[in-house]
């Protein structure tokens, strides 16, 4: 990494005082540079934004680092400070970590999605740590009256090399705060990293093994009440009437009232029961009877939804998103053709911590606490809703008991704000498991129509993939529904766009009154299954080994290195009889992940997963153990969606209400997983999600290898293969 010329504003240097003895806080302005991560999730980073405080060092030398992103299991609480601490030269174990409140002006984009925390901010975090370090060194050099280049920093101290003298950061901060901010600092060579690239234990785990970590549901505010909400099970319907008088008679019940929440610009309705404890609110809700007005929209069932998607595909009603060459003429003339339809289900996020949020609305301000992936969005949305300036809305992130995309959305805080505003008291809205599972927004169900032609040279000559399903991006009233959806190529390895001469990707958007949205790895979570299953089918048509077939289309060195690693670690070439091997490789949020799954039949003749090997190429990275954990978890989540659970609809309502019908994989079903990480000079890619998209096809391709049976509809039961 080279000297970075990005200016760090002098205004960011704040000399503070007070009883805590904090002498120095250091912040920096975000660069006006959009090139880092060109996805929507980082758009807010693109402008130059205000200054902020990321590092504070008090006169006793205590270092506090800020994590501006949500911690939902993916490890930002560890990774963000780990980056800063490396360049700052402090021991991570001696550092306090705090969550930033929602404030995009100060922190840039805080939406924790798109696996963007590290890839979107690492250069800035490193530069920030290095700038503070250089200023502390400069301050020491001044005190000692020696040249700064004779000094170095280590473990929270500055050392003078020739004399061996040293001073702690705490003794230097006051002096350092007076210095001009260097316009350029040199970042460390990755070979000299002491903290980054090391599998350091997570700093949040001590609190997570003794019950002390505060999740949203654990937060308490003086005087707060508890609310549960009976929401319209058909999403779009209205409240006609409800029996508040009876419910209000129950012990502990304080209020019964209609409440709305904003879901993609639609105000969805429910009735809230507010009590003095969670249980009293829940009991009140049991006595609640709501009459709904469900006129004016369709009440669809799963069968109808999928029939419509298949019909749209059959009638070729689609919008082209990305094309090259002339697919139609090539396909028409081709000798070897492959055609297949793949179907993936609607899914619920079903985080272990159900949705919840506390709001405390006052006349001229509002405070919010909760498991929140997007504190900045919630600040903005709440300010708009309450007609307050954003700085009057304080959004506190607790730890999140899972996020998976669901907690990036602003509907559940909206509801809490609406209720607190109405009752003029702090209130925690608690979603039951049933609420969380049935209300969506869901991962949309998809049907993929795939057609391909194999050339005489046994390569892909032409490829067409049309994805039918609800478009997550056009749910707002008035959204432009004629626009193509480029997300339908998410997950595809980039070299295929060059190595396949004729292709067409398109989408056939389905209109349905069911809210849908991001679910870990978003479109890639289902695209990956279709793409990599279909490539496997084409490999069979070409008479090629599935890994060789992929390899010949992926000539670039980075992809070849990953394939070689995958081949080596999985012993791909040493496969035995009675073993099924399947491979799948996808690209998601700037990381490439290849997975090989090995299956066999157990004594009872059922298919069992013997092993999964994963190779993650996320370029520059921070903590290898967190990467391994994320890939392990992604695989297990994908396995659940492939073989265990799905959300279905009947008469416009979600059918699966709890874990007895939406069945999760259990410990005995977790396969052995081995994760390898590529070391290279590439830019940082995502970690939290990219391990998920390849898994399902690796499994079903392995099952095909073992049994000859091609699985094209999810979920399927491993016991019934």
């Amino acid at each position, binding site marked *: 990494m080279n000297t970075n010329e990005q200016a760090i504003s002098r205004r960011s240097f704040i000399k503070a005082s007070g009883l805590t003895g904090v002498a120095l806080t250091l912040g920096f302005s975000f660069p006006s540079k959009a090139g880092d991560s060109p996805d929507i999730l980082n758009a807010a980073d693109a402008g130059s934004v205000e200054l902020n405080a990321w590092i504070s060092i008090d006169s006793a030398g205590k270092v506090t680092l800020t994590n501006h992103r949500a911690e939902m299991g993916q490890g930002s609480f560890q990774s963000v400070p780990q980056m800063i601490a490396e360049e700052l030269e402090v021991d991570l174990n001696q550092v306090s970590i705090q969550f930033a409140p929602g404030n995009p002006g100060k922190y840039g984009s805080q939406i924790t999605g798109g696996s963007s925390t590290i890839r979107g901010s690492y250069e800035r975090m490193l530069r920030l740590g290095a700038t503070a370090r250089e200023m502390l060194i400069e301050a020491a050099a001044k005190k000692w009256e020696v040249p700064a280049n004779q000094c170095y920093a280590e473990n929270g101290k500055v050392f003078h090399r020739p004399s061996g003298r040293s001073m702690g950061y705490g003794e230097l901060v006051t002096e350092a705060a007076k210095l001009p901010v260097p316009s350029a600092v040199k970042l460390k060579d990755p070979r000299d990293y002491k903290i980054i690239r090391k599998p350091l234990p997570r700093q949040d785990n001590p609190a997570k093994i003794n019950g002390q970590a505060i999740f949203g549901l654990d937060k308490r505010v003086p005087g707060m009440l508890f609310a549960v909400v009976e929401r319209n099970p058909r999403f779009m319907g209205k409240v006609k009437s409800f029996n508040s008088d009876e419910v209000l008679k129950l012990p502990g019940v304080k209020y019964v009232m209609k409440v709305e929440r904003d879901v993609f610009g639609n105000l969805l309705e429910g009735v809230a029961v507010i009590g003095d404890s969670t249980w009293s609110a829940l009991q009140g809700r049991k006595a609640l009877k709501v009459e709904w007005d469900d006129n004016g929209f369709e009440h669809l069932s799963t069968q109808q939804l999928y029939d419509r998607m298949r019909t749209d595909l059959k009638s070729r009603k689609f919008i082209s998103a990305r094309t090259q060459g002339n697919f139609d003429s090539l396909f028409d003339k081709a000798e070897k053709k492959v055609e297949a339809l793949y179907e993936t289900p609607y899914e619920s996020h079903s985080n272990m911590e159900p949705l919840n949020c506390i709001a405390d609305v006052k006349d001229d301000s509002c405070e919010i606490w909760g498991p929140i992936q997007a504190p900045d969005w919630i600040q903005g949305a709440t300010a708009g809703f309450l007609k307050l300036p954003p700085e009057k809305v304080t959004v506190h992130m607790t730890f999140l008991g899972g996020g998976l995309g669901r907690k990036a959305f602003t509907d559940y805080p909206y509801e809490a704000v609406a209720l607190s505003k109405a009752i003029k008291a702090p209130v925690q809205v608690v979603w039951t*498991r049933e609420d969380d599972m049935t209300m969506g927004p869901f991962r949309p169900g998809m049907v993929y129509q795939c057609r391909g032609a194999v050339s005489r040279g046994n390569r892909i000559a032409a490829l067409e993939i049309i994805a039918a399903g609800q478009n997550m991006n056009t749910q707002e009233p008035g959204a432009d529904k004629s626009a193509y959806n480029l997300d339908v190529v998410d997950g595809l390895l980039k070299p295929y766009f060059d190595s396949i001469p004729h292709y067409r990707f398109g989408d056939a958007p389905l209109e349905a009154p069911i809210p849908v949205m991001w679910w870990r790895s978003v479109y890639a979570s289902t695209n990956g299954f279709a793409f990599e299953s279909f490539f496997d089918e084409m490999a069979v048509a070409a008479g090629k080994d599935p890994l060789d077939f992929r390899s010949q289309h992926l000539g670039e060195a980075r992809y070849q290195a990953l394939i070689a690693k995958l081949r080596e670690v999985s012993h791909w070439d040493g496969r035995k009889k009675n073993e099924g091997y399947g491979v799948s490789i996808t690209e998601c949020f700037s990381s490439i992940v290849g997975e090989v799954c090995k299956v066999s039949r157990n004594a009872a003749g059922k298919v069992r997963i013997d092993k999964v090997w994963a190779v993650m190429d996320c370029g520059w990275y921070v903590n290898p153990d967190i990467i391994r954990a994320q890939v392990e978890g992604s695989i*297990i989540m994908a396995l659940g969606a492939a073989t265990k659970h799905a959300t279905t609809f009947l008469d416009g309502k979600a059918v699966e209400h709890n874990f007895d019908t939406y069945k999760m994989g259990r410990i005995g079903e977790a396969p052995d997983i081995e994760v390898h990480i590529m070391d290279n000079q590439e830019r940082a890619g995502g970690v939290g999600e990219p391990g998920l998209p390849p898994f399902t096809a690796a499994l079903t391709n392995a099952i095909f290898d073992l049994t000859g049976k091609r699985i094209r509809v999810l979920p399927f039961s491993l016991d019934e293969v």
Partner: protein
Amino acid sequence: MPTYVLNINDRTVSVDAAADTPLLWVLRDELELKGTKYGCGKSQCGACTILMNGNAVRSCSLPVTAATKVKITTIEGLSPDGKHPLQQAWMELDVPQCGYCQAGQIMSAAALLARKPNPSDADIDAAMSGNICRCGTYNRVRLAIKRAAEKKGGKS
């Protein structure tokens, strides 16, 4: 509201609660013991697991009336200093991700080790199958239980 006397983490406490209140909500809303989590409300996920006389029990489905005259242990009372062999093993293997289910996982594992100091894989599958982890930490949970068993040296 009736008053109930409970023995929780070796302390005697009395709480006022409706008779049908599940122990989970008594712990969380009345006693400020929030390490025990709500996950499903019907014994499907194990996030609310506590020990009742040493056995793993889902507190979301245990009415407070059934929790008197027994010894209740929550994650806060598993060890005085967070150094139970399971907690140590959980730290060493960095088991938690989001962490929400982990108290329940640890409490189920504690009941298992008390009963079977050297559990087999099948024992672990059976004892832990009631605990869902959406982050998918299962393989590390298994390793950590085995590590903790080693630390305890086969003693229950």
